């Protein structure tokens, strides 16, 4: 065993000890803390019923055919013509945000909800009526603390309580 190799072994073990006793931690304590994502994060999509002009551009641009135009029965009967409104299907949605970016009236908006899971297949499909009720809220055992990720020169990522 040559000397330089021994030195390298020692260096590796010492570096390990350094991190064992004085290393930073990057962990976000997820169910207790949730990260407040930056402005414009492409999370789940919310839909504004009133400002929608039913142009169906969102359904046309959707790469996964998750956005679909549903015939709105009440409105069709009231207005005497076929009225279609968008509904979203999270079983297919890939969160590319094309529908939001193409919407000419900003009826579709990004939210920062990003941590939802479902028990069943059916509850992931949102026809227009449910779609306009807002995004689902993930199940939290306790009310989580909102934190902001701060990029740090020495520790990588730190988490600070979000101001808002």
């Amino acid at each position, binding site marked *: 065993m040559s000397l330089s190799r021994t030195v390298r072994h020692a260096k590796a073990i010492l570096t390990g000890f350094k991190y064992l006793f004085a290393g930073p*931690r*990057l*962990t*976000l*304590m*997820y*169910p207790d803390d*949730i*990260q407040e994502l930056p402005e414009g994060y492409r999370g789940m999509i919310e839909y504004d019923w009133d400002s929608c002009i039913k142009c169906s551009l969102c359904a046309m641009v959707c*790469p*996964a*055919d*998750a956005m679909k135009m549903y015939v709105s029965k009440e409105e069709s009967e009231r207005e005497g013509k076929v009225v279609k409104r968008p509904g979203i*299907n*999270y*079983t*297919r*949605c*890939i*969160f590319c945000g094309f529908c939001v970016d193409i919407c000419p009236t900003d009826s579709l908006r990004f939210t920062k909800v*990003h*941590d*939802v*899971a*479902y*028990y*069943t*297949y059916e509850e*992931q499909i949102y026809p227009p009526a449910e779609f306009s009720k807002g995004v689902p809220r*993930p*199940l939290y*055992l306790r009310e989580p603390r909102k934190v902001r990720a701060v990029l740090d020169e020495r520790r990588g*990522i730190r988490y600070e309580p979000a101001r808002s």
Partner: protein
Amino acid sequence: MVCSLEGKLLVGNLERSARKAAAWLVEKRPVRDIRDWGISFSLWPVHFTTACCGAEFAASAAPKYDAERLGFLPFIGIRQCNLLFIEGTLSKKMAEAAIWVYEQMPEPKFVVGMGACAIDGGIFWNSYNIVRPMDILPVHVFIPGCPPRPEAVAQAIIMLQRKIRRGELVRYETR
């Protein structure tokens, strides 16, 4: 099967009745709660990357999200694990392997469908080489997103844990 034990004649399938008795014991109240608690905090997924969601699955085990906090440890072999993560698209060739892996896992076992592809095909929904996992496996939790964020993976684990602790998923057959 007939067994004789110290002159007494025992008639019936000894193995089956032993299994029945064990199942009866395991389903009793305090044992059941302890069992479900143990299982829920020891969900070990198999190393089985079906498609690209594996990248985010790997990130959920990595320092920032550290799913090991929840008792979630990606482990070596099929035999030692109890959780199958369908990480993204299941192609036809991979689906065979997925069924194989699922069958080789010991009971009780759980399946999580990760990513839009593992629910309904996602962006590949009209591809000719896609299988929906829910058609071939009993999927317990779905995670939408493409790929889902590691937070959503953690959320799915918590939801699965809750369901196990409620005693809805683990049943010992008394056949």
